[in-house]
């Protein structure tokens, strides 16, 4: 064992007292879970209503749904996952392995969903990234482009690239440098803003990092959209 390994194992931290109550977090998580379940129930009821209306034949036009945006339907979720599979296969040919939608960080929320792609590339290097699709109804939670790179990472370099149809793709580039000042890693993350208020973002994870071109091809795929 090296001296550095020993120092890491014995690293000393002056830990402050815990600043949150785990039970309060559990209460919050339970509340969120109930809310999600209620959203799912609303979706099921809405689907049942559509099926009933279809079976009953034409009638008066249904009223628009009250309340906030709905969760993406199971069919939409499956379509997004398939679109991600297709996009990754197209952009990263020769993959040895690909799994989509198996990360614990995946989530489905009203008018948005996050889905991950985990893969092993042709050279055997593993990689993954998370793609989040937000519909126009989720617009309130989206950071506007002009504030995207004004946060606490001054070393990140952001560029905005206008896309056909009026969309703007903002790519952040972050280079990691080793002790000798040599760039040891370069990561690209992207955020696509469409004129209708919908967005698509890609956050890269551990391992293989896509190039700027590969990221652009994935994120601008028109299949990634939600109502």
């Amino acid at each position, binding site marked *: 064992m090296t001296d*550095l390994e020993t120092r890491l*194992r014995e690293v000393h*931290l002056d830990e402050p007292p815990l600043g949150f109550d*785990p039970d309060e977090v*559990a209460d919050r998580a339970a509340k969120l879970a109930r809310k999600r379940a209620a959203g799912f129930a609303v979706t099921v009821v809405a689907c049942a209503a559509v099926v009933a209306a279809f079976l009953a034949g034409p009638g008066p036009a249904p009223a628009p749904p009250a309340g906030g945006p709905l969760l993406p339907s199971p069919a939409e979720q499956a379509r997004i996952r398939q679109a991600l599979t297709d996009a990754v296969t197209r952009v990263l040919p020769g993959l040895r392995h690909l799994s989509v939608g198996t990360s614990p*960080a995946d989530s489905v929320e009203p008018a948005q969903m996050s889905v991950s792609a985990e893969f092993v590339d042709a050279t055997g290097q593993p990689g993954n990234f998370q793609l989040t699709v937000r519909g126009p109804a989720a617009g309130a939670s989206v950071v506007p482009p002009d504030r995207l790179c004004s946060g606490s990472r001054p070393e990140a370099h952001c560029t905005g690239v206008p896309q056909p149809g009026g969309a703007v793709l903002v790519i952040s580039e972050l280079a990691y440098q080793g002790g000798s000042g040599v760039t040891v890693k370069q990561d690209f993350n992207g955020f696509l803003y469409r004129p209708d208020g919908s967005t698509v973002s890609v956050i890269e994870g551990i*391992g293989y990092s896509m190039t700027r071109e590969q990221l652009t091809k994935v994120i601008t795929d028109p299949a990634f959209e939600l109502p």
Partner: protein
Amino acid sequence: MRAGDDADFREFARARALALRRTAYLLCGDWYLAEDLVQNALVKLYRVWPKITRRGPVDNYARQVLLRCWLDEQRRPWRHRERRDGVVPDQPSPAPETGISAPLLRALAEVPPKQRAAVVLRYCADLPAADVAEVLRCSEGTVRSQAARGLETLRGVLEHSAERSA
């Protein structure tokens, strides 16, 4: 979630919150952010708690979720980490780390995130390579290579800062 599962989750959260926050701090170097990450991870964990507890011990899964939360945060340069609600924290900011670990902690922050994760889990948290591989969702060989590269980078950063201060 059933009452029994809910009680089990609360017990887990109470027992592991500090350890998870310590890991989160070693990854991100900020106590406030570490607490945010742990809370986010616990909320995500709650959603799948009944399912994962049936599969066996949940510690590695919890670390996996925590790591994902940190990577999400770490890789979003557009995320503002300062408080946006205009409320001044009622606790004083913890004193900066002192003692022999301080240069090491500062150097750790300069290691690329993937290597840092391997170093923190393998050495600081003292997990076996197999557990780290489960958390990072990669092979043990990848863990060893990432940890070795991380150590190399860390050594370089420490030497570089020692030269600068000399």
